[in-house]
């Protein structure tokens, strides 16, 4: 795949994943771009799915390195408050803001690996691809994902009790 095709196929999805992972749109763009720089700089080749998995894995590791210390993440959240979406009524804007804050807080309560597993799964990756990215056995992925989902849902989804 050439530069333009690869970029257009995978960049938006990678930025969305990084936004979920970091909570910071600027950092998300930076990490996504650095992942693409490394992909092209190293001349990595493969199928579209293979390149996508490589990009997400690289981005996951970059984010992990960048936010190794918890205080960095907390400070980031304070610096990036939830912004209203244009066109929303004040009530809807408030509701959306609360939903987002609840989801973000629930993600932050997860351990780093659980957060990565959850977000990669909900970006459409297979258990094998996630296992390769985070460095665990694919056979234990169901158990790890169950735990991450349960903790996230308990903190975030109304009425969910585990």
């Amino acid at each position, binding site marked *: 795949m050439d*530069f*333009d095709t690869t*970029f*257009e196929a995978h*960049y*938006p999805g990678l*930025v*969305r994943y990084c*936004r*979920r992972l970091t909570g910071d*749109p600027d950092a998300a*763009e930076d990490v996504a*771009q650095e992942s*693409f*720089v490394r992909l*092209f*700089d*190293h*001349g*990595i*080749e493969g*199928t579209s799915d293979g390149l996508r998995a*490589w990009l997400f*894995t690289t981005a996951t590791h970059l984010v*992990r390195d960048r936010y*190794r*210390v*918890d*205080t960095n*993440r907390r400070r980031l959240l304070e610096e990036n408050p939830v912004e209203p979406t244009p066109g929303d009524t004040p009530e809807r804007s408030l509701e*959306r803001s609360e*939903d*987002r804050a*609840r989801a*973000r807080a629930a993600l932050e309560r*997860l*351990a*780093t690996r659980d957060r990565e597993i*959850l977000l990669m799964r*909900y970006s459409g990756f297979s*258990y*094998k691809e996630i296992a*390769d*990215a985070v*460095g665990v056995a*694919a*056979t*234990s*992925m*169901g*158990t*790890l*994902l*169950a735990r991450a*989902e*349960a903790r*996230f849902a308990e903190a*975030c*989804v109304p009425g*969910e009790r585990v």
Partner: protein
Amino acid sequence: MTHLDEGTILALRDRGLVDADAREHVDECATCAAALTAAQERADAVAFALRSLDGGPPIDVDAAKAAVRRRLDARREERRTPAPGLSRSLGRAAALVLLASGAVYAMPNSPLRGWLSGDAGTDAAVVESPPPVEVASPEGVELTVPAGGLTIRLTSVQPDQRIEVVWVEGDRASVVAASDSYYAVSSSGVGVDVREGDVRIGLPTGPEPIIIEANGRMVLSRVDGAVRVQGEVVSRDPNGIVFTVGQG
């Protein structure tokens, strides 16, 4: 009757690795069938909650493309214009700093251990420890290849210096260069500032991606099982590859 555990239920839901017995069981067991339905409902709720995080400024793909091209150009330009006589000492310095970090990490009660494990005055439940750093010995380095892959960065490599890659059984990679070479190991890679003489690299035959860089340029990659050498190949057989980096 023994019911399926939650992990198996989720693997069934997500078409992960489960054996045929589990599939048969859920067809016959009302309790596990209900658990599978509940897991699907929870997945829908989690997906909905995660979508609430997708707001923010629109993604400008064209601007990002231009930014990536600029970064690539800058990186390649940096490689083309090394400061004369500086790269070798910088390579040694970088390797020493990383090696020193590893040595400090290895000390009992090292502050670096606290920092790496994320509990330096923070909530340890949120930040997990990274994989342990392995300290290289002066004679070479050996480490387990991480599931996400391994990058070996060689510096101070001469154009005609032979790099010998040998495929090995197991999951351990190794790098051995001349006795006064400098080694540094992190959780995802190995850095070696090499002296004169052959460099011998043992790589497991597994599926993990492997990249070998020499003086900042990729000279060998293994992705999806395909091995690609961008140096000058001296010999190649099923046991391994011998190559030089050439003039680049």
